[in-house]
């Protein structure tokens, strides 16, 4: 399952950051030749916003993937969380905190279900989380006919649109969450045990690690991150959106970001730093293409 010991494997792969710099450099060149600007303030802000949404999901995804599992239900969790948050707020600043707590609690519950299906019911994580995703999809399709609820104005102004220089508040939130996740992975027993379970569950067991508990926790944390992304999107959209998660392809893109960041899909290797790099890379590619796709008719 894991690579042969002789294979050269990098510890923190700088590869994704090299790719990021190259992408930005080439992208800048191409966009400039195309007559656009890649690093204008609005473009940078947009890039960081895209990175914030995807990043929050991807950081959570990193945790489960490092643990040798996977979560394909995140896109629906994101959508659900925007709805729970926006509907509980109903445009009232006073309901801000309970709404966020409720959204996160709903997300965590789904994470718990995912975790239990994967560990206790021993269902392959891919199948289990797709199954849970389909359950949620049905609930959302059936229960919602479009945007619902109204995000508290203070959240829209704050998390949604406030920024420090070119850096949106939401990106700072991502950095904070990523730092926390990095801290958890490297500085807590849970983190060490999670990586061990991902690397080889049997070795972890022989070393006295309680694999089930660790993996369930990882799934809950992953869903919490997706829930947080949902709260952010609710702040950005001003309402709950039942299809925002799937439209944004958060399930697949988050996995892509994690893998680009050097985390092995089989688990046991990788980390959050690479994931943030992967997220920035995807967001940059997105930004470059967006600039290139801007149709300009009879420009001189």
């Amino acid at each position, binding site marked *: 399952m894991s690579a042969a010991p002789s294979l050269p494997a990098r510890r923190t792969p700088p590869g994704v950051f090299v790719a990021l710099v190259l992408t930005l450099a080439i992208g800048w060149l191409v966009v400039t030749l195309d007559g656009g*600007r890649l690093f*204008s*303030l*609005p*473009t940078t*802000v*947009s890039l960081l*916003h*895209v990175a914030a*949404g995807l990043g929050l999901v991807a950081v959570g995804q990193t945790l489960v993937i490092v643990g040798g599992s996977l979560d394909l239900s995140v896109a629906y969790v994101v959508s659900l969380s925007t*709805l*729970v948050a926006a*509907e*509980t707020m109903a445009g009232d600043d006073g309901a801000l905190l309970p709404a966020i707590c409720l959204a996160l609690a709903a997300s965590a519950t789904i994470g718990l279900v995912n975790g239990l299906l994967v560990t206790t019911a021993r269902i392959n994580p891919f199948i289990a989380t797709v199954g849970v995703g389909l359950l949620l999809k049905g*609930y959302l399709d*059936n*229960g*919602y*006919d*479009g*945007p*619902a*609820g*109204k995000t508290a104005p203070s959240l*829209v102004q704050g998390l*949604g*649109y406030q920024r420090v220089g070119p850096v949106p508040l939401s990106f700072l939130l991502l950095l904070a969450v990523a730092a926390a996740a990095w801290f958890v992975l490297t500085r807590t027993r849970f983190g060490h045990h999670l990586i061990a379970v991902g690397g080889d569950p049997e070795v972890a067991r022989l070393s006295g690690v309680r694999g089930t508990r660790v993996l369930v926790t990882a799934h809950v944390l992953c869903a919490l991150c997706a829930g947080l992304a949902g709260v952010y*999107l609710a702040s*950005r*959209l*001003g*309402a709950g*959106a*039942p299809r*925002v998660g799937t*439209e*944004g392809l958060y399930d697949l893109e988050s996995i892509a970001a994690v893998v680009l960041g050097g985390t092995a899909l089989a688990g046991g290797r990788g980390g959050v730093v690479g994931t943030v790099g992967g997220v920035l890379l995807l967001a940059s590619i997105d930004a470059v293409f*967006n*600039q290139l*796709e*801007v*149709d*300009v*008719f*009879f*420009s*001189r």
Partner: protein
Amino acid sequence: MTALAVSTLLVLAGCATDEPTTGASGSPSAGSGSGTGKQSKFFVRSDYEEQLALLDAAPTGPPGKPWEQALDPAMVETAKFRKPGPYKICFSNAGLNNPWRQVGFKTMQAEVDTHRGRISEFVHVDAEGKDQKQIADINDLLGKGCHALIVSPNTTATLTPAVKAACEKGLPVIVFDRGVDTNCPVTFINPIGGYGFGHVAAEFVTRKTKRGGKVLALRILPGVDVLETRWSAAKVAFDKAGVDVVGVEFTDGDPARTKKIVNDYIQRYGTIDGVWMDAGAVAGAAVEAFEDAGKPVPPINGEDQLDFLKLWKDKKLTAIAPTYPTYQWRTPIIAALRILDGERVPNPWKLPQPTITQDNLDEYVDPEMPPLHYAMCGCTDLPGYPKRWK
């Protein structure tokens, strides 16, 4: 949240509870009333009444050019936006992901072509149907030195903050097709709207269906405001006339699904006497379902898409095609130029919304145009017609 889910369930379950219980023969008892369920939460009575009134209103503006006409216009001052040309006009587009939008966008491009001297640059960004992307797109466009910003929002609620932010930048914002929940844009352009569409179609189906006949309502998606208003107006009309609506179903715009649904209903009720549709995209599939089942096609409404019009003509259907005209894509360009000239423009800018009936069908059926083309494009006088639209 749960309350909403439950209420939606009830709406849908409503079709079941009201539906006549099947006897041993399987034929339901007739005319027990309307199965239209609860009214949509999108329904606003004042808007509804306003739109129905507009249906009969006489437009002001140049005759024969409905895209420049306005119904019941209230003009707003735009002097503060006055600038010397040529202009850079930017357009944040919700998407190009259906034929209606494609035809519309081609029409808009052609309109831009007619103003070559006055528009130096026309920048278009496609949000691919994603709210998130459109928010970012609008934000991006703000940094591109546009003289005017045209927005066709992907959804009303979620795009409102972004449009507000754009207004605050001080450039004229023009919204069309779907609206936003703010008055900050200089003008909001759209045809009469969904209530009008739904009402016209429902009236027709009611009139043509025999008394006590069973009507099936086919909808594309829930939650899209334009479509919700169409249905809610139809619901009012059906309820008023006491039409037996045996089912309200969502087709997802998927012809296969449509055929299956219609097929199920034909089996279930033996016959369906009228079909109401909130959009024309799958009207062809619905007609086919009747043909394939060997049943006569009942009175039905479609839209101004050519495949349906051709079918209508060839099969001599009893049909009507209210429209949501694609010529409205011309108007934002015209409006932008007027605003930048400091001319007054109507706000809201209500465009007339013609209906294709048996009487004027032949004017719109053009066998040379592709099946997915929309006849009410107002584009026959534009440069590049018809090649550009093929």
